[in-house]
């Protein structure tokens, strides 16, 4: 299993993604404003939701399943 995918599926990886997502949303809405800000906020929602609901959108690129529990189980 790819170490990047393994980290992303771990508890630390999930928290990292959630925090990064919140930071991006805050950056987009509070700092950037405008269309650019909205785009950054929407992009931020991806890691946020993926971290919260335990799936990894990049995992299939490394030949791993998207589901966090399946990655942790090494399936």
């Amino acid at each position, binding site marked *: 299993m790819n170490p990047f995918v393994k980290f992303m599926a771990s*508890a630390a990886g*999930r*928290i990292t993604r*959630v925090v990064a*997502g*919140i930071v991006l*949303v*805050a950056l987009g*809405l*509070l700092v950037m404003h405008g269309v650019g800000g*909205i785009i950054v*906020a929407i992009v931020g*929602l991806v890691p*946020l939701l993926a*971290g*919260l*609901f*335990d799936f990894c959108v990049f995992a299939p690129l490394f030949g791993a399943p998207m589901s966090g529990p399946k990655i942790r189980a090494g399936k």
Partner: protein
Amino acid sequence: MSEKDFVERLRSNPLPVVVDFWAPWCIPCRAIQPVVGKLGEEYAGRVDLWKVNADEQPDLLRSLHIYGIPTLIAFHGGEEVGRRTGAASAATLGALFESALTGNKPERNGLELADRFLRLGAGLALVGLAILSGLSGVSLLLAGLGGVIMFTAVYDRCPIYRMVSLRLKELFQRKPTGSSDGG
């Protein structure tokens, strides 16, 4: 039936018991009925399923500290090992039967506590950000999303959600009857 009689009956019963406290007017009781009946059949000969009409045994309910129905209590060797109040999924009810059989506490089929806090925190953060950015347009959507995320932290504890999801599951799993192949 008094609590004493009930406990005596439980202790003298050779098999572990799951007691279903229900009432005819109780909609969630009716919703879980097919699942409970199926589990009763599945565990027949290993776990007994008793049904107690809550309207007919108010004293017993009071003495067992049952404050809502449906309540299912798993007893092993006359001792309570697990209970569940409200409509629940087949997996949760199955875990209750299993705990009556083994005498162990039922396995939890819910979210981890850390997951709940993570979702609550993230939801709150989104609502906070939406408020800070002025609550208009995209921010309102973000606040709504934050609310939904917060709900996902506790959805499995919400009796209305449990009722609705059970009903929907029942509706979609119902096999079509009387279909004709002619044509």
